[in-house]
């Protein structure tokens, strides 16, 4: 394959093309689409999902899944509200909530990596457990008298720019986790676990420890997302974040991450976040209802798996036609393309 062919074949390239198409479509739909204020709103509404998607990327690349993130965000919101209502200052409340997130992740990690249970069932269990704990802590009430300095995190923008603070948090996290996954030995080991856990274990990767670490990270990040959500809505509720897991998983898979692990990139997921934000915004400007957006999101989720599968089949069909020719010298690198 030529360099151009490789670039075209990459999932990330397809995402950029889709994104450009959406932007053109959006600006046709409404003159407000390309304004900074609109950009700021569309991105701020998706930041909790985006932040959780970053940690979820690492988990799915390692061949696991964490369905409990939305409940952990709710639990974080509930505990933060409970502590604030009880007179505990936020400087203590926020670290406590983050600690709870890490502990919840540790619980998931121990069940999955130490006891060896399927993460799908374990995190389905903790999905119920964390939400239940949130309801026990806060009940049906909402806490909303947070100080302005705190709600600034979700509402406010970096002075002089239309960039929301929550986007800064997302960007920093994306860079950190991107470096971790793509530039360090830890990242290589995460891919190794996702591709072949047994082989990784025999190669000296501490699979158990690394997986527990990933789930702790996921819980911690989910708690952070819960804090940001509380700040953006300026209200702490036990049902905060309900239904978000679907969007998180959709964004990650749309970013080209393989659900069976071993493949996917952080830049891909970042592109998917932006694409979903733009899509939701374009649909909203076209006065398409939230209900139809949920249909669009579900279809996208399925398509994000169907398209690479069939692209791969088409590719191998073409390869079969070409059989007989010597394989191109860069066929090893070709693995990075859709395959």
């Amino acid at each position: 394959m030529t360099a151009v062919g490789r670039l075209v074949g990459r999932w990330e390239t397809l995402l950029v093309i889709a994104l450009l198409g959406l932007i053109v479509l959006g600006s046709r739909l409404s003159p407000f689409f390309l304004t900074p204020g609109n950009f700021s709103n569309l991105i701020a509404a998706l930041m909790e999902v985006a932040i959780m998607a970053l940690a979820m990327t690492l988990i799915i690349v390692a061949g696991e899944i964490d369905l409990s993130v939305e409940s952990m965000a709710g639990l974080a919101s509930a505990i933060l509200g409970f502590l604030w209502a009880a007179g505990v200052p936020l400087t203590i409340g926020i670290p406590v909530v983050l600690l709870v997130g890490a502990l919840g992740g540790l619980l998931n990690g121990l069940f999955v990596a130490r006891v060896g249970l399927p993460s799908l069932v374990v995190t389905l269990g903790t999905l119920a457990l964390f939400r239940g704990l949130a309801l026990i802590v806060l009940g049906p009430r909402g806490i909303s008298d947070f100080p302005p300095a705190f709600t600034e995190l979700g509402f406010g923008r970096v002075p002089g720019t239309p960039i929301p603070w929550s986007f800064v948090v997302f960007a920093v996290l994306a860079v950190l986790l991107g470096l971790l996954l793509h530039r360090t030995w830890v990242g290589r080991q995460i891919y190794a676990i996702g591709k072949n856990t047994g082989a990784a274990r025999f190669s000296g990767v501490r699979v158990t420890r690394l997986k527990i670490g990933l789930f702790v990270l996921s819980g911690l990040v989910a708690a952070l997302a819960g804090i940001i959500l509380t700040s953006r809505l300026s209200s702490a509720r036990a049902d905060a974040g309900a239904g978000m897991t679907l969007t998180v998983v959709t964004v990650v898979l749309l970013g080209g991450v393989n659900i069976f692990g071993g493949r996917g990139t952080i830049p891909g997921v970042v592109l998917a976040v932006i694409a979903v934000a733009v899509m939701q915004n374009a649909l909203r400007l076209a006065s398409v209802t939230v209900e139809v957006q949920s249909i669009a999101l579900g279809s996208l989720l399925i398509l994000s798996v169907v398209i690479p599968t069939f692209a791969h089949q088409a590719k191998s069909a073409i390869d079969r036609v070409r059989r007989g020719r010597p394989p191109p010298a860069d066929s090893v690198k070709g693995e990075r393309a859709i395959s």
Partner: protein
Amino acid sequence: MTESWVSPTAAGGRSAGQWLGTLARQRELSLVAIMVVLGGLVTLTAPQFLTYANISQVAVLAAVIAVAAVGEALVVITRNVDLSVEATIGLVAYAVAHTLELHALDTAGAIAMGLGLGLVLGMINGVVVTLLKVPAIVATLGTLSIFRGVDYLVAGSHEVPFDGLPPGFTDAARDTLLGIPYFVIVAVVVVAIGSVILRSTRFGRQLYAVGSNPEAAAILGIPSRLVVFTAFSMCGLLAGVAGVLWVMEFGTISGTSATGVVLAVVAAVVVGGVNIFGGSGTLVGAALGALFLGFIANALILVGLSQFWLQAIYGVVILVAVTADAFILRRLKRAAVRRSVR
């Protein structure tokens, strides 16, 4: 890994199989035992637990979940999962209720339409998983969102009121035959038919074969895709049955009806001892799992704990059940290895 302890020698294999059978039966027995013991304890603090009215109320509610759980179990046995059942239940419930409200069909016609709709939704899942080759968890997470979106779209903010239904329609939830609620009879019939199919038909055995070892099933010439497609279709059909029961049970139906039910359905399957990795489990177990969860919810209220505890306790029950499974499996493996060494 699951197959290694069944295969060492012919004799060892057979006895391991017997072992497994005993343990599977033990899961059902242990669920019943736990319910009897807990029931006794609850009766001590809340005597109204052991009344006919209360028991039949628990059984009727559990029957709805049990029917859906039987469908889910069929899918899980093939090493897949269907997360869209709650959206199917909700969509069927709204479609049936709204049709009856508009007098577009008579009662029998509306019920038939509901079951057909459930079947079609299940077939859509089956096509996405088998033909489009989307992993079941992704496919059904997607269709969960799509079906629910269609439900919202069709329903809007409209809610079918209780008196929008034909007079007597919701009585089915309370009527009994010789003291047994009709819902329980429906659930028992579904479990009985399903169990006979699983135990004694070629399709039933193929279901287990595909779930316990897909590669071996393919080598044996089992049409895996057709089997998985049929399992998803049956799951949709049974979710449709649950949707019709849902209308009779609750009477007031909106676009958000049955939200969150998938948790109870999957929990029932897991608690009932169906292996989430496929290949083992019984429908009786799945139905008992549903009864167990309903029983816990009821006991919670009678003992005076708030409804808010329910979710947390469901979570704990799921975690305990899978952990117990893992330990039983580990012990089985160890026993099989010891036998094969000898």
